[in-house]
């Protein structure tokens, strides 16, 4: 790695907040590093300070309670979710998406927080968090605020995080417990690939929700489909909510076609 930076490993939230406010323009948080380190290596990011968020006291905490639902600290990895019995049983949708993300080694390091802050349109965790009504707890030296994931993504690789703020926790409401779903992700090779397009369908009681990755500047939640809609009607509604483009991984037409195929296939699974 050619680019040089200083490494900070704050041991308390207060210490991290003060480092963040000192380095608003030249600092980056390091979680699993699976986005940040390749970006530094490629010269896309040149932080002067890298602040490791994994040494904070509560960072690795993944805890479930009736009152607060599921709470994930900044350092909770994708594989931590897959290994957690409570997550598998109460929030299987998180695992369905986690399982589609990258390779086993990457999942051992990659965090859920890093995945959403990275705000890639092809984020595999965003669809699950959107469908489950999860919220992000953001903290800075000035205090804390909570933002639902429906309002968290602001554009390609952009979020509502302000300079000096970090994502401290992700909360999945207890009310979403038991929601079930399937995620179909189109990719060139099994495991280990960013999606060409991904469609998640989640059922909870009478409600059906879809979320689509890699088909718009941000991951998209679609709540307009009802259980009574025909498969074609449902596909039309989902397609109306997205705006895929053509890029190295696929054309706009291919993406649109496959979204329709996936919506029909997901509905057929439950019929």
């Amino acid at each position, binding site marked *: 790695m050619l*680019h040089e930076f200083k490494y900070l490993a704050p041991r308390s939230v207060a210490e991290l907040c003060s480092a963040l406010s000192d380095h608003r323009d030249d600092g980056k948080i390091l979680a699993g*590093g*699976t986005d940040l*380190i*390749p970006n530094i290596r490629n010269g896309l990011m040149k932080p002067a300070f890298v602040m490791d968020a*994994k040494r904070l006291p509560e960072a690795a905490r993944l805890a479930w309670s009736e009152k607060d639902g599921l709470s994930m600290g900044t350092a909770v990895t994708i*594989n931590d979710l897959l290994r957690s019995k409570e997550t598998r049983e109460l929030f299987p949708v998180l695992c369905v998406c986690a399982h589609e993300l*990258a390779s*086993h*080694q990457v999942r051992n390091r990659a965090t859920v927080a890093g995945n959403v802050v990275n705000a890639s349109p092809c984020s595999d965790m965003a669809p699950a968090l959107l469908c489950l009504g999860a919220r992000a707890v953001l903290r800075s030296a000035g205090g804390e605020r909570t933002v639902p994931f429906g309002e968290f993504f602001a554009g390609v690789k952009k979020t509502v995080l302000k300079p000096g703020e970090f994502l401290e926790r992700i909360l999945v409401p207890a009310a979403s417990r038991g929601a079930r779903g399937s995620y179909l992700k189109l990719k060139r090779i099994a495991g280990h690939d960013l999606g060409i397009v991904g469609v998640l369908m989640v059922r909870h009681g009478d409600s059906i929700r879809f979320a689509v990755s890699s088909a718009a500047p941000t991951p998209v939640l679609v709540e307009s489909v009802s259980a009574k809609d025909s498969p074609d009607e449902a596909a039309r509604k989902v397609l109306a909510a997205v705006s895929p483009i053509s890029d190295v991984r696929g054309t706009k037409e291919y993406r649109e076609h496959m979204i329709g195929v996936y919506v029909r296939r997901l509905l057929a699974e439950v019929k």
Partner: protein
Amino acid sequence: MKIKLTVNGLGYERDCAEHRTLLRFIREDLGLTGTKEGCGMGECGACTVILDGRAVNACMVLAVEADGSVISTIEGEAKGQSLSDIQAAFERNHAVQCGFCTPGMVMSVKELLAHDPKPTESAIKEAVEGNFCRCTGYTQIVEAVLDLTGRPEAKGELRHV
């Protein structure tokens, strides 16, 4: 920054540049060149080592992040002239051709077997999905693991002759 870590059972204490990857540290500072660099960005798995019990891509970990940790690399496998069980199974099953992917592949398999001593074929495939092999076509690698962990129906069967 001064870091202290254990690699293959030996303690090391070194001064290390903060932007140095764990991969470079292991290869260039410790001289353990068994771990390979392929892509340098998380795609190929040639750099896989076991960090505190989990297989990771050492090209995406900073050496300073590994301060205080316990690491296993391919050099910790063979004892003198005798191969580890995983290495011997790879050799027996022709799971090594050019050998570039092998150190990483063996580390991924080692992590798998530590948690799942009798893995299914699909668990094996998942464990090595982040390790690219351009030579073997993977079949022999999966067979090596099945051979090692005991696949009854495969006893005595001759493969790839």
